[in-house]
């Protein structure tokens, strides 16, 4: 069997080198590019992201990442968002009083965590969604988070979709969305590429699922 091909979307944000290496480590054939054709054709697309919601959206739009993601999802082709790359999948972000439209794949708003210590920085466990593919075998492990903002609720999706999204939660001050699995679209608030062996296991689960589609 040939290795699943993965494109890590290169739009000037995120510690892309780590993401590339972590995916190679789990057996994917990885290309770092913003080329729309390559991003459309790969078995999987990874959308990394660090920093501010607004600047990540600007960066994404600059390489037409929004269209690339939309088209892939419309065709049922897998996409994995990481950290702010997950946050932009929601309807909007509120940072420093600035409201920024997201990609709107899911309803809801990303806003500031309400906890005594912010950023939420370090290793934490999650409550995996029942039947989660991503967390299969690493249900009780720690993952590395670093973020000040999060989706603190997950409103129900309209439109009578057949399969509701599987939402994995974590807690910092209150509950927030740690990961979502929603058909071809998956995302994690934490950094699997920085989460040691547990993160590698999760990425293996995702990469393996690419070939099963």
């Amino acid at each position, binding site marked *: 069997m040939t290795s699943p091909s993965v494109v890590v979307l290169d739009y000037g944000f995120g*510690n892309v*080198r*780590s993401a590339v*290496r*972590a995916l190679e*480590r789990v057996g994917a054939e990885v290309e770092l590019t913003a080329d729309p054709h390559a991003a459309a054709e790969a078995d999987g697309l990874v959308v990394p992201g*660090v*920093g*501010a919601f607004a600047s990540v959206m600007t960066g994404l739009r600059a390489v037409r990442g929004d269209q690339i993601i939309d088209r892939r999802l419309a065709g049922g082709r897998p996409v994995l968002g990481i950290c702010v790359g997950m946050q932009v999948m929601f309807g909007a972000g509120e940072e420093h009083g600035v409201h920024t439209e997201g990609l709107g794949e899911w309803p809801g708003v990303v806003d500031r965590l309400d906890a*005594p*210590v*912010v*950023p*939420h*920085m*370090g*290793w*934490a*466990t*999650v*409550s995996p969604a029942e039947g989660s593919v991503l967390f299969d075998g690493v249900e009780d492990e*720690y993952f*590395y*988070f*670093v*973020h*000040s903002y999060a989706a603190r609720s997950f409103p129900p999706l309209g439109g009578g979709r057949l399969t509701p999204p599987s939402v994995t939660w*974590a*807690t*910092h001050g209150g509950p927030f969305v740690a990961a979502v699995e929603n058909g071809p679209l998956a995302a994690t608030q934490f*950094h699997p*590429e*920085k*989460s*040691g*062996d547990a*993160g*590698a296991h999760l990425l293996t689960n995702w990469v393996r699922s690419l070939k099963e589609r």
Partner: protein
Amino acid sequence: MAVAVRVIPCLDVDAGRVVKGVNFADLRDAGDPVELARRYDAEGADEITFLDVSASSGDRQTTYDVVGRTAEEVFVPLTVGGGVRSTEDVDRLLRAGADKVGVNTAAIARPDLVQEIAQRFGSQVLVLSVDARRVVDGPPTPSGYEVTTHGGRQGTGIDAVTWARQAVELGAGEVLLNSMDADGTTAGFDLEMLAAVREVVAVPLIASGGAGTPEHFVAAARAGADALLAASVFHFGVMTVADVKQHLRDAGIPVR
């Protein structure tokens, strides 16, 4: 589901080599930062910190290579500090593979640097490193602690607690508080200073300086540290990262 207290080994790197002797019989090259980082990762380090003590810019270039090679092999967060003077330095380190960057002296000289870095890259990449000591001579500061430079040899008269608070207001996402009084003593972290800074900053706080026994790490976590950094006790094999984490776990403190 509370966030785990992090244990962080720190490596001093000069021209791409680890300085301050490291003593592991089973390492092929104990002077290679990549090999050491790999070793600490395997022991359960939650993060690795490199402190670049290179004097020349040519030697710093070597550090970028080391950061890159480490990031290719070690899949836990990597923080690099030492000699960071501009947003360009931060950019270079992040591109090389660092996840976070420590700023120290340059931010004291020009606090706006903190804001510039936070605005361009986000607070989460910016660790404010503070080398502080109790004021012994010179005019007292409000907290009794002052910021030092030159490895603790020069006092600045700047109040250390106030500086930490100001830097966080300017955008620092984390504070690394290094006690120059405790550093090298192995008599324990400066818990009073830690508690004083904990009072005024709502970002993660890393305790550094003075670790000698696993109990010292427990005491610092109880004093409010989110992360515990040490160098020589790990390098000389006095204890392993795993030993420290076991002690923390036994004390009821969450660790990975």
